[in-house]
């Protein structure tokens, strides 16, 4: 957590290898990631990191199930039937199994964020990075998404690193890191 401009999103983007640090290094699972090629970084993102964005970032041309299947398709080596089954299973967990044929842009904000959560988790990455996941949602929907992430964290044993302003999130997390002016101010 931290005020606007404190560097939360920048930190998250760098941890997710979406952005390059101007100095210093990033290690993921003991791998020094800053020196990796674009292709190697893509491999790390593909298999080890899941993203949830404030603006959902679903592919509007794809259906709900296609969006969720996309990380599995990129990972390859899985049959179409297995991919569909895995996507349905995770969509069932986020309560959207009835919407799988809908286009992503036909859903409400809360539903789109649930799809984004499902997409981030479908290939079981070790780390899920969430940037303001409730930033565009009303309070009721925000509570639902936070509860969902907490439940999946417990059930699937995946680490969530969440950037947020939402007070409701604070009670749901194990550790809070406060940032100020690009530096860690406090860890609770």
């Amino acid at each position, binding site marked *: 957590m931290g005020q606007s401009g404190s560097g939360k999103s920048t930190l998250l*983007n760098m941890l*997710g290898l*979406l*952005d390059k640090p101007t100095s210093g290094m990033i290690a993921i699972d003991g791998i020094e990631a800053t020196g990796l090629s*674009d*292709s190697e970084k*893509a*491999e790390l*993102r*593909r*298999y080890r990191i899941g*993203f949830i*964005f404030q603006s959902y*970032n*679903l*592919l*509007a*041309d*794809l259906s709900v199930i*296609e969006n969720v299947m*996309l*990380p599995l*398709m*990129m*990972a*390859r080596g899985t049959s*179409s039937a297995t991919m569909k089954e895995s996507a349905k299973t995770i969509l069932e967990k986020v309560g959207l199994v009835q919407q799988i044929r809908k286009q992503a842009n036909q859903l409400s904000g809360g539903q789109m964020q649930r799809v984004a959560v499902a*997409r981030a988790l479908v290939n079981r990455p070790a780390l899920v990075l969430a940037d303001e996941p409730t930033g565009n949602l009303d309070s009721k929907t925000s509570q639902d998404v936070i509860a969902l992430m907490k439940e999946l964290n417990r059930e699937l044993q995946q680490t969530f690193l969440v950037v947020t302003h939402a007070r409701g999130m604070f009670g749901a997390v194990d550790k809070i890191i406060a940032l100020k002016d690009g530096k860690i101010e406090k860890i609770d």
Partner: protein
Amino acid sequence: MDFRLYLALRFLAKRKGNFIASIIALVIGVMVILFNSLIFNGVAQGILRDITNYLFGDVLVTKNDGNFGSDGVQLMDYVKVAFPYVKGAAPRLSSIAWMNSTEGGVINEVDKIPVVGIDPNRDPQTSTLYKTVREGSSTISRGEIVLGGNVASDLKAKVGSRIDVRMISLQGNDVIKKFIVVGISRSAGIAFDNAAIMNIDDIRTMTNRPKEIDQILIKLTDSSFQYDLKAHLLRAYAQQNLKVQTIEEAGRDILAGIRSGIGFINLVGDFGLLSASFAIVTIMMLVVSSKTRDIGIMKSLGAKRKDILTIFVLQGLIIGCIASVCAFSIGTAAGLYLQSINFSFGSNGLALDIRYDSVFTLTSSLFAIPLGTAASVYPAFRASRLQPIEAMKLT
């Protein structure tokens, strides 16, 4: 299915406007080349056919040092008997004439009109000149004349008109004779639209050149024997200083002009294809621009540069393949149709000899595939270089 192909297909399906516009641009580019080839090769073949039929035959025999006399008749009879593939041989004799007609009390004159004399018995076996006679009769007895359409127009002469024809004899004397117009010849400019046709004996009499022949036209049942006949004649008449020309040689000047024109027009067609490829590059750039955010998202999910490159190049390949099939289908249908209708520009225009060429149609159509693919490479390359966070921020 590979996710890159899957996404390429989904993106195309969801952007039907761009998809269809790209295909249309490519098809138009290929069709410009195909139609250029069909029409202008049709023109060239039509002219070749007409100059063969009207002017030179399949083989044209002249003498390097003057005209034939009675030896011309012997040569014609010889080739008819000796070579089973010779369909006919006919003499021609040319001159220049001055003509005038009096219509409604007004004298109309034309000067220095080329006149060709034909043998009305032999010529129809060798030439289809008679088919150019659109009004009146093509049978020309002595004292009768067929005027080219333009000459008839200048003289204001009609079938049945009487005209005075003046020629200069071999001795330099003016010889004037009255002729009756029995026909008007129109051939889209290939034959004698600016000339006149008369009985060969009239020219011989008026110019005092009895039995003279300046050209012998030989028509074959199969034109591929023209080189064989030429070789035989040059051997058999080695002492007579013959000039034996195939149609390609006799019509060299005419054909060279036409072919250089066709080459130029085909170049214009190639520019059409180049314009089409620019249109596709532009459309693909628009497609990529509209997909910037999606590219960022895909990269954040683990797509590599080559994956992004592949997705957009595949789109170009798919567009190229579909355009290729469309161009081949349209090109085949149009080619076969134009071939079947004896297409010509206007009722008196040159009848094009359009020949549908399936191999040329196929190769031209297949050209859409590398073109569509190549046109997508640059936009795809630009797309693949986008950093994920930049791509997502750009929207």
